[in-house]
């Protein structure tokens, strides 16, 4: 009889230990837990319309290239924004030029002083605009996931609302002015094939 109790006790202990040593999470539970109450859309709206569009801290593309050629370290420090550690930084630039080609959302712009620069109106993703603007700090958000959601909402405004309004009225041969983010690496010394992630395009 005693043996029977010992077996039952043993099985109970093993079952409790087994239950406590592993745990399972459903994918849906994890995904739902990641949903936040914070209104990222409203926050991004405010950053875009009250911050980025009114930001006077953009540098002209001509001045940036000149500054890079004379002292790239200083140019990175004064005009670039790199969060954390890395070889590259984002810069918020403005420039003007004539549209000479449009292909798959890429607008080729002839810039009198700097040759051809490309505006990518299709792949407006990632942290280029958020970081180049310098308006959102990593410490403003508790996790990287929240910080990245700011970029997603900001990109949605530009990619789905702002840029489609402009590009339906521009064509090859038009002169435009534009503002946007570019990524430059400390390793690079040639400034060709520069791709701009636009924040604003205006027909001149």
């Amino acid at each position: 009889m005693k043996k029977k109790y010992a077996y039952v006790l043993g099985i109970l202990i093993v079952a409790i230990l087994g239950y406590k040593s592993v745990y399972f999470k459903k994918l849906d539970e994890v995904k739902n837990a990641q949903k936040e109450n914070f209104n990222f859309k409203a926050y991004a709206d405010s950053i875009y319309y009250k911050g980025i569009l009114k930001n006077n801290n953009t540098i002209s593309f001509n001045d940036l290239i000149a500054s890079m050629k004379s002292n790239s370290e200083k140019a990175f420090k004064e005009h670039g924004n790199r969060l954390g550690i890395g070889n590259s930084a984002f810069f918020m630039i403005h420039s003007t030029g004539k549209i000479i080609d449009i292909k798959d959302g890429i607008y080729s712009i002839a810039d009198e002083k700097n040759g051809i620069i490309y505006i990518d109106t299709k792949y407006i993703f990632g942290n280029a605009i958020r970081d180049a603007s310098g308006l959102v700090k990593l410490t403003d958000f508790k996790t990287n996931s929240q910080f990245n959601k700011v970029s997603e909402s900001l990109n949605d405004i530009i990619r789905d609302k702002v840029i489609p309004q402009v590009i339906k009225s521009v064509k090859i041969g038009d002169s435009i002015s534009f503002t946007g983010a570019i990524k430059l690496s400390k390793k690079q010394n040639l400034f060709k094939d520069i791709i701009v992630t636009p924040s604003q395009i205006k027909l001149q």
Partner: protein
Amino acid sequence: MKIKHLSLVLLTLVLVFGCSTKEKSGKPKIAVVVSTLNNPWFVMLAESAVENAKKLGYEAKIFDSQNNPAVESDNFENLISSGYDAILLNPTDSDGSISNVLKAKTAGIPVFCMDREINADDAATSQILSDNYSGCVAIGIEFVKELKEKGNYVEIIGLVGDNNTWARSGGFHSVVDKFPNLKMVAQQSGNFDRNNAMEVLETIMQANPNIDAVFCGNDAMAMGAFQALQAAGKANKVKIFGFDGASDVIEKIREKKIIATGMQFPKVMAQTAAQFADEYFKGRRIFPQRVPVEVELVNASNIKDY
């Protein structure tokens, strides 16, 4: 008789306090607690952290948490009672590891997280993390272009409880989900493990034989996916994308058998964590809570640089 009793009391005191008091030698000791040593990437991260700590003049030892928060908890208890002065941690779980970090914090031991984030901004002294999201945005763009915006694909994610898993998946989907002709036919966990990913993809392909691409949350799983596709005779048809920058995947990109990966810099993260510990010992107390480390896209166009 009195002397005998006194000796017994003294011996007891020595045994009790001698075992529970932290052993403090002159040189500070750094513990490197790593999620697993079953993956070469984490072996490199841990060994690099030890190497950097030793270069700075400290004793350092690796503790393996075997991808299990309970083992990690035991590791923390051991190293706290063994008198370690700082912990360079690669956490097992973004939520499950918080209590371990807090335990160390209560004991006055700074914790510097490497590569994996914990969901708290007041527990670790600093967190040095790959910018997984941005890296996977770049992979997502490459993915859309390679597939010409249409096709069926499979996503093999890493550990469900790890933030990196979701940061990578989130970055990838922030791009790919905007293209309605790209259809994800299955999303399953391969636990960041090569064999696991191989088996997962083999099972998925039984129900979905016509897939055009596989996105894997790390390179070990990308290699597992490659093996599964090779065994099924589909390695040349299905495009594979990974993440990490592991040497075998870099070779496969060179051979045009894998399309792209995101190059992480584990040595930079380990070096920064060891450097922060050194600065802490020298009196620095204010550190950035999160330090993102850039991830670089590696594909056929820039493979010569890697």
